């Protein structure tokens, strides 16, 4: 079976004040503002080829509005439309959105709004098209500057059902599961065409909850620099720099000024998965080490603190 989703394309996240949000997301995190339109702002990382990867929307409650996945080919959108029909998932066809073409929008069993799209403007990254240097010279030296968006971890009241939906209908494949005593997955790390440890992960929790969304930060040096920048700017660090047993990624959990959790996720210790390889299994006894490898235990806030 071919991969039909290329990656997590964008997330829309609610913030309580758009001015303060933009100050944080551009000056501390180091995203570039594409455009601000009323109560929404579109942003992208410096190495993103697509029009944007984060939408910030002013609201009275933080959390996730939607997560959108981009397909590999244009026809894949039609393929998923057929699949949604086949599984009787109610969906809407959104003909267009900011700098984007058609998308399928639907609610998942976990209560999240997902979109699947292909067409979006592809303005390129912030490097020249010809003979580029490896990074833009005008990166803000005291910002985190992740090159790309990586994944999102969301919460589901019935995680097993949500995991099956993502696997059967959306054709995600699992790299890792936490299984309960019945052998059912209660948490999953799911990948698509990039074969990274995950584009999407699911853990038990409230309906439509966002545990975090993550940006790629690769080297140990960059991870520690990111942590320094967080402290310099009085950003609340939730965990890390540390390592996950699950995915083997290294990272930092931190909060935006409204309590949305963000992660820098380091690929330098993480694997690329071979299709067909059996998913890795964690159990109730070992999952402490799975989530926080060095600490070897789950802290309560991992399961209770999210937007």
């Amino acid at each position, binding site marked *: 079976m071919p991969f039909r989703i290329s990656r997590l394309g964008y997330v829309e996240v609610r913030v*309580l*004040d758009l001015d303060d949000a933009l100050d944080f997301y551009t000056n501390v995190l180091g995203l570039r503002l594409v455009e601000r339109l009323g109560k929404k702002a579109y942003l992208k990382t410096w190495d993103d080829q697509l029009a944007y990867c984060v939408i910030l929307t002013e609201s*009275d*409650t*933080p*959390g996730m509005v939607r997560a959108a996945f981009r397909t590999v080919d244009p026809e894949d959108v039609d393929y998923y439309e057929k699949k949604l029909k086949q599984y009787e998932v109610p969906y809407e066809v959104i003909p267009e959105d900011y700098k984007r073409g058609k998308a399928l929008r639907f609610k998942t069993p976990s209560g999240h709004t997902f979109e699947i799209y292909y067409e979006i403007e592809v303005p390129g990254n912030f490097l020249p098209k010809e003979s580029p240097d490896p990074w833009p010279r005008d990166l803000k030296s005291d910002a985190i500057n992740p090159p790309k968006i990586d994944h999102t971890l969301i919460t589901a009241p019935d995680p097993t059902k949500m995991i099956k939906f993502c696997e059967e209908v959306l054709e995600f494949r699992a790299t890792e599961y936490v299984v309960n005593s019945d052998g059912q997955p209660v948490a999953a790390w799911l990948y698509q065409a990039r074969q990274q440890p995950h584009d999407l992960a699911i853990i038990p929790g409230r309906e439509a909850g966002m545990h975090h969304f993550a940006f790629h930060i690769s080297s140990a040096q960059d991870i520690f620099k990111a942590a320094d920048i967080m402290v310099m700017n009085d950003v*609340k660090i*939730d965990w890390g720099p540390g390592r996950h047993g699950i995915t083997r990624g290294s990272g930092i959990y931190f*909060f*935006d*000024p*409204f*309590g*949305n*959790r963000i992660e820098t996720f380091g690929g330098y210790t993480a694997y690329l998965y071979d299709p067909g390889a059996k998913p890795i299994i964690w159990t109730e006894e070992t999952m402490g080490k799975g989530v926080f490898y060095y600490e070897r235990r789950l802290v309560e*806030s991992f399961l*209770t*603190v*999210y*937007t």
Partner: protein
Amino acid sequence: MSEVRTAFKIHLLPNNITFICHEGQTILDAALRAGIELPHGCTRGGCGVCKIRVKGKVDFGRVSRAMLTDQEKESGFCLSCRAVPLEDLEISLIDGASAKVIQHDEFYSFLFKTRTNL
């Protein structure tokens, strides 16, 4: 010369401890500095984990409306990570339990009462 700063007294029940909160300081910040472990998560008004009962006037600050509803504000709840006292307060945890208190004094005095012989 020291500036005179307004401060409010916060009385924590059932611990029966009073601690000082400076003008503009959040309840959580003042509590943690006093070694009182009030529950907290994001510390940015988003997750609701720091919700406590409060008697007295506070500025609720910028908080998630899903985690602190208008009705909760009226019936004596606040998010301690954002709430700033406007007068002396009485607070308690949601479940009425005692908050954990850390005796910072002991290891601080170990550090700072060490004699320096020059």
